[in-house]
């Protein structure tokens, strides 16, 4: 696999913005650009990476994190590991990965894991919570792009329970430009996307508001605590425990999903939404394991929410905790 080598490896940066809580790595780089006084986006990109690299993967993925060791002194308190854990969706993404990221300095891992964009929100716009943005302005003096609203299936702010908004900046635009939230959200013309939402999808989000708020909270929890779990192995174990607890067989099936979603929503609305979002997987599944490994992590969070209400219970509960006797030795 060809890996691009930076022609001029970057050195220590003269400053680096302190990451805000829940901030996306891309947003940190945007704030760097704001402070840099650089004449152009290209100048900042070259200063950061040593060559003209795409910025879009930095929105949710740990792209270019290996640069942090060159950017920052050891005593800075900001490390590759802290950025990976707090400012990227890696620990959510790896839930369905077969590999653990062992060496962040090896950029080729991103190609081996095919992690690009698979948790990015389907709308493909930069997203935000208006109430969170107001709070950010009040507390920090500037708004920033939070990581959570950029994640797929996150439609509500878990703190304010308000609907998240699409800004006027498509993700395609951030490939080679910095779009700081402080600039975008202060411009009325850019605060909202000029694209009409699908009314049917909007109906689902409004009808199942409580469910999607819980999904958002579970995604937030996994972003924070997902480091505890070892890739797809722990996911499969958790599904196994749940299937054992339910006593309905070994593998996760479409019927299991239908049953779980219907139990939550009282109708087939959620399940039909799930099917629509995972069309390829649902129509081509080959019993349980294939289904588990082909749907994206955010869809798994929906399933966890439907099965157990929250991701913590899904991962950490044991059958005995749920008062169910194990009927077969699997």
């Amino acid at each position, binding site marked *: 696999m060809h890996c691009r080598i930076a022609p001029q490896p970057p050195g220590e940066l003269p400053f680096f*913005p302190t990451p805000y809580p829940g901030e996306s790595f891309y947003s940190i780089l945007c704030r760097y650009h704001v402070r*840099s006084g650089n004449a152009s986006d290209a100048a900042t990109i070259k200063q950061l990476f040593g060559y003209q690299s795409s910025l879009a993967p930095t929105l949710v993925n740990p792209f270019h994190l290996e640069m942090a060791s060159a950017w920052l002194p050891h005593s800075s308190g900001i490390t590759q590991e802290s950025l990976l854990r707090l400012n990227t969706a890696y620990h959510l993404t790896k839930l369905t990965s077969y590999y653990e990221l062992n060496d962040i300095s090896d950029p080729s891992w991103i190609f081996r894991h095919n992690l690009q964009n698979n948790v990015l929100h389907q709308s493909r716009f930069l997203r935000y919570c208006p109430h969170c943005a107001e709070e950010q302005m009040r507390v920090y003096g*500037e708004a920033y792009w939070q990581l959570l609203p950029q994640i797929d299936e996150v439609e509500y702010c878990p703190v304010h329970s308000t609907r998240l908004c699409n800004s006027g900046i498509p993700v395609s635009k951030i490939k080679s430009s910095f779009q700081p939230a402080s600039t975008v959200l202060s411009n009325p013309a850019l605060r909202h996307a000029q694209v009409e939402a699908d009314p049917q999808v909007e109906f689902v989000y409004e009808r199942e508001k409580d469910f999607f708020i819980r999904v958002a909270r579970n995604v937030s929890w996994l972003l924070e605590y997902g480091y505890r779990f070892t890739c797809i192995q722990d996911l499969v174990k958790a599904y196994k425990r749940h299937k054992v607890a339910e006593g309905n067989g070994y593998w996760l099936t479409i019927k299991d999903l239908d049953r779980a979603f219907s139990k939550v929503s009282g109708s087939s609305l959620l399940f039909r939404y799930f099917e629509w979002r995972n069309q390829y997987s649902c129509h081509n599944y080959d019993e349980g394991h294939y289904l588990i490994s082909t749907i994206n992590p955010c869809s798994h969070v929906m399933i966890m929410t439907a099965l157990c209400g929250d991701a913590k219970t899904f991962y950490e509960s044991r059958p005995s905790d749920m008062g169910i006797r194990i009927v077969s030795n699997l």
Partner: protein
Amino acid sequence: METRIHDAIYREETINEFVFNPMIEALPPPFKPAVAVDKLMRRPSYSSEERKEPSEIRLILTQRIITIHQPMVWEIDVLSRIDRCIRWGYVGRNPLLSSYACQLAAGHDAAVNGLDLDHAGVYHPNTYGFSILGISGIGKSSTIEGILSLYPQVIRHTEYNGLPLNMHQITWLKLDCPCDGSLKGLCLDFFHTIDDLIGTSYCTQYSKNATLDRMMIAMSQLCTTHNVGLLVVDEIQHLCTAPKGIPEKVLNFLVTLVNTIGVPVVTIGTPKAISMMQTEFQQAKRGSGQGDALLSRMSNDAHWDFFCKVIWDFQYTQQEVPYTQKMRNALYEDAQGIPFLAVHIYKLVQEDAILTERETFTVKDLHRIASEKMGLTKPMREAMKAGKEVDLRQFVDIASFSCKDYSDNYSIAAEAASPAPAPERKQSVQEAAIMTLLGLGLSYTEAQTFACMAIAADNSGCPAPTVVARNAWQLYQEHPQAPQENTGSISGLLGYEAIREAGLVDNAL
């Protein structure tokens, strides 16, 4: 000056406004006057045993004399002002406050949207800075550099109370106003200086194709990003020679830096810059409480006595020359209260004593040396002594420092000190022609009349007296009978008023 990046070490602050401000807590504590004097003072090593060294060695050792620096009262005052400027300047620019990020976002928006610098900031300044004006050689720049060297120029922050805080703090930044007063030159000098300090590449980015407005916004943005504590602009009098409109633009930019970005600005220059700055900086300096430091040469008082005693200790002649009141007065008379000149005269008189093997010197020797070895400054020094106006622009090379602007500035300062004497009345063209015609035998009336006629008939506008006399003589030869004497007939000549105003005719006519 050597630049070294210091890692931040935070002190506990007691002043309420300074608490929890990493920029202020990383500064050295305020200097007590005695400590400041000790730090600013420069005394080379000396031993009386060195008087016994061979003459060629002692001639080398005399060079130490010019490295002596004795802090004056005004230096301690300036140090105190600079200290206040730096500390209070950081109060509103605490990176932990929301206003810091707000300021940076505003600056970026101004750059992106092509707005002017007034939209690039949201600060209300706590201090405005001040000006230091004084004649060249009085020690402004060297003193400022000495004061600034008491502060670490670059402080690197990595963590503050457990919170990651990765940034550089540039406590002070000293720029020289470009010779042509160009704002672009000032901005590029700023970028170049930042690049040298912290290894960035702003100069490369902005030296090509960047507009001046963009450079100004970038400069203001970088002042905030890199936490510039104080901006010192030296040689501000260069703006006086800039094309019209440039001085106002530069000074307005500096005022904006103060008012909008909150960076205190200290300007250093010669009295030449006084009138220029009074109009532009008046608003900015209002309410600053710092005032301006207007430095003049020393008076022959206790301070001068103390200074002389300090340098007197550094003697390399084999015979000890005692310090007396006469010596002090002689040194003052020759140096006119300028420490730089005094130090040089004292050094030169010792070298002369060593070279001529007399190994001693007297008051007369001081005067002689000042006259012989610093003869180029003699008219200037005598002018200072008499308070007379002298055209000093001819004295370009004096001793080891450039005196051109010094002499330019002193002439202006001397103007301000004492009014210029009335210019000597020059003989008019008419008078000179009359004198010539009188010499040719014409009566006074005839000479006056024909001279006026010749001037009136001349088309050049500024005829030489000899031309007028020749033309008048020709007119006399053609028409020997002079026109009837009538004062009114003169004024009836075409263009008489213009000729009179040009000084070609005597107003007594």
